[in-house]
């Protein structure tokens, strides 16, 4: 093949251009640390990375949701621990009395304080929302109704779900204060599926009958106490605050509307409500247990998400990250090639027969 001056120039120019392109590509890899710097560098790799990034983004959001849910459940659990403590104190007042009138007044006031504390606890606020009001979270869970002398649930029994990662949902995150549904255990509303009879130390018996019609959001429990001959007392409650209120007034030997009670009526009420308090403690244990289960699920899910995120990040790293050792060696090789080409070009292009003609 005949070699002409232009062939030299073209080949050298093309060689320089190719080497410089490769040098640019390698220096981009070194400066970004990535071997894929645009989709066309590796289409499949880019698409996989895009998929991994979406998963990581959703995992991260899932972890944020888990943190928020855990904080909520921790708060609810702390409140319910305080509720349990208040109920224990209520129970102690019934067990510790010696029946003197001075004690009765003291315990009436003490229980009233516990009642108010329970009311405050039921209306606990977390992040500007009432925790135990269901989805009606801008309303207090319980408020006193002067007409019925009882504490009414203002919330609903709607459960809230949250997403805890791609395709994973935690149903029933929130703890509703009360529910008419006897299968839903709540911390403040009394759960009673069917009528229950309690034999009292006085020989009387108390029949607790559930009523889900009076209050749409709660199970109202109607209590009828009868001795061997006739009905001697009737009262009702639907939640632990009502119960505390009844106990407080029973200590004062009066009904919640101020109507006087006989000593035996008051004592029967206290005895009846003592068993009810035990049921509330059981309900709290169940709810706390449910919180524990939810937190365990959240923690499990968090570990899974963290592990999955790490795996996806490794995948991205394997696809995207440049092997720096290899890149630097390649860079060195290209630099050497380029320098050799420049030196050779300089020699080739500078020589001509004309230089030797005198």
């Amino acid at each position, binding site marked *: *093949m*005949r*070699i*002409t*001056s*232009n*062939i030299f120039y*073209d*080949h050298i120019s*093309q060689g320089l251009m190719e080497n410089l392109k490769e040098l640019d590509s390698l220096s981009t890899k070194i400066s*970004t640390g*990535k071997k*894929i*710097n*645009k*989709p*066309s*560098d590796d*289409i499949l790799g*880019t*698409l996989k*990375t*895009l*998929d991994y*990034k*979406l998963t990581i*983004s*959703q995992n*991260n*959001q899932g972890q*944020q*949701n888990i943190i*928020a*849910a855990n904080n909520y459940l921790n708060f609810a659990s702390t409140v319910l621990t305080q509720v349990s403590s208040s109920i224990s104190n209520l129970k102690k007042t019934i067990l510790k009395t010696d029946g003197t009138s001075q004690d009765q007044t003291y315990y009436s006031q003490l229980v009233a304080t516990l009642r108010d504390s329970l009311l405050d606890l039921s209306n606990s606020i977390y*992040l*500007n*929302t009432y925790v135990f*009001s*269901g*989805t*009606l*979270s*801008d309303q207090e869970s319980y408020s006193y109704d002067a007409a019925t002398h009882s504490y009414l649930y203002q919330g*609903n029994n*709607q459960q*809230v*779900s*949250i*997403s805890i990662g*791609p*395709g994973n*949902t935690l149903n029933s995150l*929130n703890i509703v204060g009360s529910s008419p549904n006897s299968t839903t255990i709540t911390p403040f509303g009394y759960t009673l599926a069917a009528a229950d009879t309690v034999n009292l130390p006085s020989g009387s018996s108390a029949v607790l009958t559930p009523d889900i019609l009076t209050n749409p959001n709660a199970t109202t429990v109607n209590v009828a106490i009868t001795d061997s001959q006739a009905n001697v007392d009737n009262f009702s409650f639907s939640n632990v605050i009502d119960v505390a209120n009844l106990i407080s007034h029973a200590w004062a030997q009066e009904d919640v509307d101020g109507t006087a009670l006989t000593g035996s009526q008051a004592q029967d009420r206290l005895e009846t409500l003592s068993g009810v308090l035990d049921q509330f403690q059981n309900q709290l244990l169940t709810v706390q247990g449910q919180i524990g289960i939810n937190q365990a699920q959240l923690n499990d899910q968090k570990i899974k998400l963290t592990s999955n995120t790490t795996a996806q990040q490794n995948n991205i790293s394997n696809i*995207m990250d440049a092997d720096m050792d290899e890149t630097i060696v390649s860079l060195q090789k290209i630099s050497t090639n380029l320098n050799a080409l420049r030196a050779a070009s300089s020699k080739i292009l500078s020589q*001509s*027969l*004309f230089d030797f*003609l005198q």
Partner: protein
Amino acid sequence: MASQTQLSVVSNNISNAATPGYSREAVVLEVNSPGSKTGMNSAVGQGVMVTGITRRYDALLQNQINLAQQDYGRSNTLSQYLSSIDQLFNEAQDIGLAGPLNDFFNAWQEVANNPQGLTERNLLLQKADILISSAQQLEQGITDSIGHVNTNITSDTDQINDLASRIALLNGQITQMESGSSVASAIQLRDKRDQALKELNNLIETSSWEDPNNGAITVTVGQRNLVSANNTNTLTATYTSSGSYDLKLDGLNITSKISKGEMGGLLTVQENLKTDLHDLRKLVASLTNQVNLQHVQGYDLDGNAGTNFFDPLQLTVVKNAATTSLTATITDNSLLTLDEYAVGFVDDGSGGFNYQITNSATGAVKTSGAYNPAGTTVNLEGIRFVLSGAVTAEDNFTVSPLTSAIQDFERNLTDPRHIAASSGAATIPGNNANALAIADIINTQVSALDSGSLADYYQTLIGQIGGQSKTASDNLTFANNFLNQLTSKRDSISGVNMDEEAADLIRFQRSFQAAARVLDVADKLFQTLLNL
């Protein structure tokens, strides 16, 4: 004289060593025959004569270079434009829509975590704004590229016409010169014409052949004559209502026949960019529609039914050629397929017309029926088409829910309280079911997106853009290497080697010196005779 001519040719070769398209010239020498001399004189030669000057040239190779130049022109153009779109959607560097899209749907989850929190609601609105501006920037990037392509189509058309005129002019000059005896001059004109033809082939796909009778070449583009002898037809680029260019030569539309050269590349890029733009708009339209459809099912913080989160989709009606009028309105967003429609008319054979609505992309007839000029209403896939007025068979419209999907992509909600996170009016503000449902849209399969999710569809778009760029880049590398090989081959035949020329220079100088010496001896011999 022969040596002088040789020295002149060498000098010309050296001068044009770097001239693009120049073919090395050589002097053709011939022994000067003794003519009518007889006897001893007939055995003595009469010296040398120059019979012509030729160029070192391989017509087949030049033709191959012209074809390779067409491929190079196309590949270079494709690579140039598609790599810029590759950079626009550079998800490898987190540039594109994936981040804003994920953030938008994650923000819905934040709202779900605290449905009555105004902070979370405001954050969602901000994320929606970022998503909107990102989508609009991407659309702007593509439309800017399309605009640039359009500008280049018109400027290339002008260049093609200029080159055609130059070739026609050279044809005329070559014919004129080669019909006389000035062969050397025609060689240089042929080089010029070859160079012009090469430049033309870089711009557009051509075929050419030379008339052996007069040396003129005929150049055709799309099977129509662009140059014939010293005549040209003007290539025109006409912008159409569909947003593309039609190339017409000699009165005929040759657009579909142009696939190579820079022009072929530009036409292909235009189609690629239109496809990318269509897909991006479809993605945004689907996002808008899906979010709105779910949002209106919810309730805001005040218990009011949700309104559209984004401004709803609008139809764009383009009247291509019509005396009729068409209004199209969306009646049911849930039925939208996000397809584009072509509305046309077909003669029913009895003096009337039938309307026909087809899917623009597939050409499939979606519905048809008798057309009543007083007013014809057609309900199809959530759209009401109302046609009226006198009609001709040429009348046609295009109806698209996508054209303005990104341009009109704006947030309808301004008040964060109006975000409908709840699924029930009676369960506000803590109900987050609707917010969760919207957050899940990113992974929900949508029939309008070929039963893929928004995330899947976007990934397909990225794959498509990356694939286009990668193919263009690979093709460019191949075309460039092939062209370089052919150019080297041509240079090995037609190129100038300075050492060779230097050697020739010495050779012809010596030849000249020897001839001069002969003259000197002859002169001295003659002087001797005169001095006798």
